[in-house]
């Protein structure tokens, strides 16, 4: 059942992105930014976490889930550190994902050659 929920909710979020691409001609960079920012604000007002609790990876793997992680991180950090947490919380929460992408991409750039065009 967890897998079906993950499939349906994750797929539905991707459909939303696809409709944006087809209907608005937004570039994919803008859609990625929009989805993360949307996730941050939905997370901030507490609307996204219930979706994560319901659909697991279906809600946390798409980019709004990354935004939700940032929002949760900044709120936890404000609880822990006070005002300075506003500055540190977002990056702290997303550090693992960003550094994994940077590290693996750097190694990939060392190992792989660009495709001939």
């Amino acid at each position: 059942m967890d897998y079906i929920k993950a499939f349906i909710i994750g797929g539905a979020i991707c459909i939303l992105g696809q409709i944006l691409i087809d209907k608005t001609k937004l570039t994919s960079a803008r859609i990625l930014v929009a989805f993360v920012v949307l996730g941050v604000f939905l997370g901030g007002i507490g609307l996204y976490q219930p979706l994560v609790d319901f659909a697991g990876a279906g809600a946390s793997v798409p980019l709004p889930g990354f935004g939700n992680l940032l929002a949760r991180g900044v709120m936890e950090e404000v609880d822990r550190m006070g005002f300075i947490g506003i500055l540190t919380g977002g990056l702290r929460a997303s550090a693992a994902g960003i550094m994994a992408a940077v590290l693996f991409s750097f190694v990939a750039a060392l190992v792989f050659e660009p495709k001939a065009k």
Partner: protein
Amino acid sequence: MNMSKKEYGDMVKKASPNSKIVANCIKAFAVGGTICTFGQGLYALCGALGASRDMQGMLVAISLIFLAVLVTGLGKYDDLVKFAGAGAGVPITGFANAVAAPAIEFKKEGYIMGVGAKMFLIAGPVIVYGTLSSMIVGLIYYFVR
């Protein structure tokens, strides 16, 4: 049905934008859903190995990013994006692809301004606006909590 080539062409034109969007959405749903379901499997695996809940989330993200970068390096993630559009772009794997693809492509411009700078071509804006909006959330939370 009798119609000239031109009439047929007009009809195709009229019908195709929407049916194309529907087809795109089905492909996005299928591929995006599959990636998330795979992620769900990774959650279960990490849970079975005894990782805490926060740790599971991190391990799943790291694993998906690793796989997406590998597939990008092999030149195959592009094909997935061409086929599934947002289905491949919206999951965290799409973010990883957006970091790895320019890093590899701009290797020829050197490791500083090529790999180092171009890596953030799309990830940069995502991180900038993601973290800035997290600060807005943090600021509001600070005063209303």
